[in-house]
């Protein structure tokens, strides 16, 4: 394997393997940034992995008042799922329970896609006959009376079939502090990439998984090859001096967004250097047979 490195950080000549997904996006606004983020954070809670949560979701970007339909501070939230039906169900449940309920919120389409997903056109029934339909400028809104005024919600939002889920980086470091510093730097850099999210807690995964396990019914189990406490007893991928590995999982609106996010993440980790962050960057794959999208680290060097 040829040795790749950037700023002293070793980079494995491997690739991240990712899958095609369905995705949608909404723009949530509120009277101030705090409550816009609160609604967005609540609706993207328990949405780290499609395996157990039904969808993967996170805030894509904070939007300034000048970039939202109602001139208030907002967030663009992206939701990813394996199929359209599940995505529709997750979207309505999450907006209905977490955004409709949040003080002063409004919810708008955040994506113009190949098809529409129901948003306000389903949530309107909460209005119990008092809901108001408004169509102007080619857009359709529902106004649903609630206790602090009205919940304004666009009738539909878009669906894209071009989305990609499962782009990833594995950050290997000498100790936990450095691994976390590298992960935080990568997440911050990826946060600036439009159309890409990191759905795990704070964008970081510490329990990377492999497919299957020794127990029946386990779809995924611990990634022992990257677990430092098993480095002596299993077929480990870790060299000497690696004591902590953190993973960044990336979902993108397009394949290009995933590649841009991985590149931004690698760049940030390399800039931090091995003294302050990761000593090595790798990526997770399944041998290339499961996922349609392959992101080779050597193509994404800073």
């Amino acid at each position, binding site marked *: 394997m040829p040795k790749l490195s950037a700023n002293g950080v070793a980079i494995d000549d491997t690739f991240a393997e990712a899958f095609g997904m369905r995705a949608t996006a909404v723009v949530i606004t509120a009277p101030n940034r705090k409550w816009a983020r609160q609604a967005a954070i609540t609706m993207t809670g328990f949405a780290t992995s499609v395996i157990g949560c039904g969808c993967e979701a996170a805030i894509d970007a904070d939007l300034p008042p000048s970039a939202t339909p*109602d001139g208030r501070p907002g967030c663009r939230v992206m939701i990813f799922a394996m199929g359209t039906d599940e995505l529709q169900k997750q979207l309505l449940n999450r907006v209905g329970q977490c955004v409709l309920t949040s003080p002063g919120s409004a919810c708008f389409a955040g994506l113009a896609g190949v098809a529409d997903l129901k948003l306000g056109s389903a949530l309107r029934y909460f209005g119990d006959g008092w809901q108001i*339909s*408004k169509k*102007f*400028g080619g857009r359709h*809104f529902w106004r649903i009376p609630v206790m*602090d*005024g*009205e919940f304004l919600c666009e009738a539909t939002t878009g669906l894209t079939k071009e989305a990609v889920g499962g782009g990833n980086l594995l950050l290997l470091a000498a100790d936990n502090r450095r691994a976390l510093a590298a992960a935080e730097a990568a997440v911050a850099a990826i946060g600036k990439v439009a159309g890409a999210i990191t759905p795990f807690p704070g964008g970081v995964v510490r329990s990377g998984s492999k497919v299957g396990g020794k127990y029946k019914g386990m779809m995924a189990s611990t990634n022992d090859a990257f677990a430092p406490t098993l480095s002596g007893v299993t077929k480990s991928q870790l060299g000497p001096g690696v004591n902590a590995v953190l993973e960044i999982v990336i979902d993108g609106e397009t394949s290009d967004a995933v590649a841009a996010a991985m590149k931004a993440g690698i760049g940030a980790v390399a800039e931090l250097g091995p003294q302050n962050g990761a000593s090595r960057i790798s990526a997770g794959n399944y041998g290339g047979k499961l996922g349609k999208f392959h992101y080779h680290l050597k193509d994404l060097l800073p």
Partner: protein
Amino acid sequence: MKALTFTLLAEPPERLDLSPLTPERLAGMERREIEKISVGLSKLGSKVGDVFRLSDGDRQNIVFEGGSARFDRVAEGMQAGSVRVVGDAGAQAGRAMRGGALAVEGDVGPHAGSGMRGGRIEIKGGAGDHLGAPLAGELAGMNGGLLIVRGRAGAFAADRMRRGLIAVLKGAGDHAGCRMIAGTLVVAGGTGRMPGTLMRRGSILLDRAPQNLSPSFVECGAPDNAFAAVIDRYLAAERVLKRPLLGTAPRRYGGDNAVLGLGEILFPQASGLA
């Protein structure tokens, strides 16, 4: 490509039905055929060539150089393209339009935009009574699109409106938005007697508190309203208004409770109800 231009030779001797002169109906016609189209509505039976001098051009882009209150049914049923009248127009300008753009630089008569379903009508001057309203016997008025009157509108503007948006910028006459079924009527510059009479649903957005509101409208508070912000921004983006109309927390009156009562009149909070 140059516009197809009809230059008015003199004030027409009779009312004219200009509904044949739309982009769809003129498509593929030779200039000589166009000149032979009958537009006169009296026994004089004027032809296009008797009233206008034609300057050939793009059928999708029609201009009337010079207008008259006798120009009836301009751009009726237009689906795409544009019609511009440099002057006044008569009754039923842009009636039943489905798309495209009609611009009138002067005033228009009654029933402008009557029953329109799409497209954009912009009238620089004033409009007569029954703006966007149905003709006698029809059940619904305007059903989509954007209708802007930069001057004043007469009585019964937006009568039986069902969808779309009408904006009147220098005041409307009596019973603006009467019998509205849904849709949005914006009036800056004041309304006459009893706006929203017998409206079922729909929104009437005003720049000031209405005078002479029917007692069947009831006060419904003034909470923060994201819709007001969205429509204000839409009106600015469409260059209908330069300044926000409603602000962030307009006052709301619900009505007309003499009928269904799901309509509303919104106006900025600063302007107290007289």
